[in-house]
């Protein structure tokens, strides 16, 4: 039984101080078990290995699956295709309803599964399956002339379009207009642990039970998604994810491979089935960020004050399943302007299904907006920080509510001081160091603060001052295990060492996804609610065994305020005058995110976001060959992510503050904001270095050799 509890602010003792990651030793020794590393001790006995067979055409119908050679291969147990795979009870979700029909919707779609005694046999078996198709013409290219579909809403459930005032008239009357198109590339999340699942079916009390270890950002979400499709009640699916090797959004929802594993395991009841998705397969099956085209118009007075902002977005989704990235969403709330228009249009293509990638919407949208702001600063002859000061809104431009602590300008002031901004030359291409042009740039960062519904936590007295605290949330590397321990300790008024924390299992109280910078806010508030209710019900000296399960009630004030985090990003760029090589010797982020729970894990989160933003700015691009419909960059040698040698002096700091209206811990969430604005700051720094404006990412060396 879970009760709803109105929380009060936590008296902080461990919160705000360093605590070693509670799972640190397990990680540095390699003893922490990830999804397919569980063995007999966890019920994974004598597993079979699964391999995916993927379509080699982008659109069409499977007319024949020749399995004979595969079945003859030693070690192969079975081959499943659309005719032989178990039927699903529901098949509305086109991405997950695999092997239910012969239709091919994108290149790389799962068209058969091979089960074998070893991974070598499974892989060879998959290579021996011969699939024939009736091929149909496909469309796999995002262009300005085909991205015209208007979705009903954009992720997660925002307005597709917004309009306020008369943008066209305001632009026509403006002293200064910036009108440009900005582009961001297709990106793949590429967590270092490829998606992986082990699943088995057995019976418990006469009911079918599907058990899984899945590399997931949210075990409850996986169970809720799979259960109805498999004709099960949610409690018949048990999902655990004690260790997850990163996700960055791609493990936020179950993808097709999870269903593949569940279906295959159903055919060999009692035996576990392991599937480790390959790095190459991830480029078709586990989500990605759409490329975006942002048409931006800014109209301002000579003093730089914005009269109008227009941000029209074109991007793509899959015709199989719609996902509309909310790219213009930050444009709706970032700066003051009486006239504003935003819109999103999609091309629905015969391609793999896009999904969440770190800061969906904010990351590509703020690249466009923040480079446009830099261009406006240049046009107005203003320092780019001064331009932002002049366009600071009184109220949230989107909701017209007061912001709860909008400290963007404090972030700029602190960053400017630390970065040495005041000595920056006003003009571009002003500094040369040998063969290198040197410049600096800034950008704003923002991310909404979100608390998800559907969270509860359980506190149980273990006696002798110790407490078991349980919630089904997942630690994907963020440090959730550690910060939830600190939160529980402070909420109960005990030392962190007195807390036994259990997470990442659907048999624990429900938890929302580790995504949208909402995890600590959502789970932590539930932990505080349970702890405070526990103390109210059982006092300071509870009998061993007594327990309380509770969820947190919303703060009544929360409806009257707009909650966002803010930040400033400062970058120094060096561009080689002959080769165009780009180096970023310094990158600094200063953030306002409410109270930081653990400065060590928080710093790593911010720096990780900055590194991923730098990586997006300079390297990351998935290149689709529209003729065939697949990404030709499908490994880490062709899809480049930042490596050690690319990361020089990167640091992050934050303002001391607390947001106790938003959560009883005072925190607002930190996972995404580090990636927001970072690519724009780097782009703006390369402009300041060279005088050449690059309006698309990744910013590659050739861009500086064109003139």
């Amino acid at each position, binding site marked *: 039984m879970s009760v709803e509890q109105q929380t009060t602010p936590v008296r902080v003792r461990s919160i705000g101080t360093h605590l070693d990651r509670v799972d640190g030793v397990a990680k*540095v*020794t390699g003893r922490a078990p*990830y999804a397919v590393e569980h063995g007999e001790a966890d019920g994974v006995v004598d597993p079979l290995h699964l391999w995916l067979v993927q379509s080699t055409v982008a659109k069409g119908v499977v007319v024949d699956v020749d399995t004979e050679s595969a079945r003859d291969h030693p070690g192969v147990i079975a081959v499943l295709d659309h005719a032989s795979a178990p039927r699903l009870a529901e098949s509305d979700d086109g991405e997950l309803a695999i092997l239910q029909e012969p239709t091919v919707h994108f290149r790389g779609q799962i068209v058969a599964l091979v089960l074998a005694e070893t991974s070598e046999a499974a892989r060879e078996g998959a290579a021996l399956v011969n699939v024939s198709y009736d091929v149909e013409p496909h469309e796999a290219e995002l262009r300005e002339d085909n991205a015209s579909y208007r979705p009903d809403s954009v992720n997660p459930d925002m307005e597709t379009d917004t309009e306020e005032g008369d943008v066209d008239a305001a632009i026509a009357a403006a002293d200064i207009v910036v009108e440009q198109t900005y582009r961001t590339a297709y990106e793949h999340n590429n*967590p270092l642990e490829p998606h992986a699942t082990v699943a088995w079916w057995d019976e418990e009390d006469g009911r079918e039970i599907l058990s899984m270890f899945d590399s997931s950002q949210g075990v409850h979400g996986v169970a809720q998604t799979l259960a109805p499709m498999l004709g099960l009640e949610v409690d018949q699916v048990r999902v655990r994810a004690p260790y997850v090797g990163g996700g960055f959004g791609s493990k936020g929802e179950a993808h097709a491979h999870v269903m593949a594993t569940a279906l295959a395991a159903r055919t060999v009841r009692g035996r576990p089935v392991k599937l480790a998705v390959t*790095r190459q397969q991830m480029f078709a099956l586990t989500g990605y960020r759409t490329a975006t085209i942002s048409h931006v118009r800014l109209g301002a007075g000579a003093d730089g004050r914005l009269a109008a902002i227009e941000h029209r977005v074109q991007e793509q989704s899959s015709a199989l399943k719609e996902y509309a990235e909310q790219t213009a969403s930050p444009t709706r709330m970032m700066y003051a302007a009486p006239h504003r228009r935003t819109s999103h249009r999609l091309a629905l293509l015969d391609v793999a299904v896009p999904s969440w990638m770190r800061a969906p919407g904010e990351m590509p949208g703020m690249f466009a907006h923040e480079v446009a702001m830099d261009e406006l600063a240049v046009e107005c002859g203003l320092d780019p920080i001064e331009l932002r000061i002049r366009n600071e809104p009184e109220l949230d431009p989107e909701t017209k509510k007061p912001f709860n602590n909008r400290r963007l300008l404090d972030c700029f002031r602190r960053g400017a001081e630390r970065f040495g901004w005041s000595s920056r030359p006003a003009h571009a291409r002003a500094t040369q160091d040998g063969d290198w042009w040197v410049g600096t740039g800034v950008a704003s960062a923002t991310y909404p603060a979100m608390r998800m519904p559907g969270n509860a936590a359980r506190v149980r007295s273990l006696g002798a001052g110790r407490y078991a605290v349980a919630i089904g949330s997942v630690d994907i590397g963020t440090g959730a295990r550690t910060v939830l321990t600190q939160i529980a300790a402070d909420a109960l008024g005990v030392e962190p060492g007195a807390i036994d924390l259990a997470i990442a299992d659907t048999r624990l109280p429900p938890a929302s996804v580790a995504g949208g910078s909402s995890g600590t806010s959502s789970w932590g508030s539930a932990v505080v609610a349970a702890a405070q209710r526990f103390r109210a019900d059982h006092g300071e000296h509870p009998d061993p065994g007594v327990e309380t399960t509770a969820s947190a009630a919303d703060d009544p004030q929360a409806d009257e305020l707009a909650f966002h985090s803010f930040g400033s990003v400062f970058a120094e760029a060096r561009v080689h005058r002959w080769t165009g090589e780009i180096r970023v010797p310094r990158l600094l982020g200063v953030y306002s995110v409410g109270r930081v729970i653990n400065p060590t894990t928080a710093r790593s989160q911010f720096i990780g976001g900055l590194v991923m933003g730098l990586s997006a700015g300079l390297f990351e691009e998935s290149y689709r060959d529209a003729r065939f419909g697949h990404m030709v960059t499908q490994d880490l040698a062709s899809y480049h992510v930042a490596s050690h040698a690319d*990361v020089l002096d990167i640091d992050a700091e934050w303002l001391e503050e607390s947001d106790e209206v938003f959560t009883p811990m005072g925190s607002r969430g930190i996972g995404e904001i580090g990636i927001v604005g970072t690519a724009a700051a780097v782009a703006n720094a390369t402009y300041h270095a060279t005088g050449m404006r690059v309006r698309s990412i990744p910013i590659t060396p050739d861009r500086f050799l064109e003139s």
Partner: protein
Amino acid sequence: MDETIRLTVDGAERTVEVDTRTTLLDALRERLEVTAPKKGCDHGQCGSCTVLLNGRRHLTCLALAVAHDGAEITTADGLAGGGPSADRLHPVQQAFLDHDGYQCGYCTPGQVCSAVGVLDEVKNGHPSHVTADLEGDPDLTDDEIRERMSGNLCRCGAYPGILAAVRQAAGA
């Protein structure tokens, strides 16, 4: 076709039957349940599978098991002495903890093994791509550490922490 090979893994003699197609990484992970070496790409592009093979860092995903009959392998688990207690951690592992040189932990065993290999290579005078003087003893500058560790990707972006950890371990 199957072959039986012998390996010494973290100090223990192991005999394992492998398919001639089995990589050293899969022999460890799937046949011996030694899962400290991770599979991040299976193509030698990410470094997660790094172990010390006969004392030098090596990518086990690019090694066929049958070609390494008799090899001595040390994983991150073995560097810690095989026990569960923190006080037996290798200095490199302790440095990763001290500088939060990881987040999700998946690349970490490979980073740790690689760092141990780097320190040994520098001690033995091996130059790198960024070493200016190929004749003298390399000085383990930050750029040297970054260059030598660049075969190990970290998608969580813990590179500044890893750099600080390797620097600390080099001074230890």
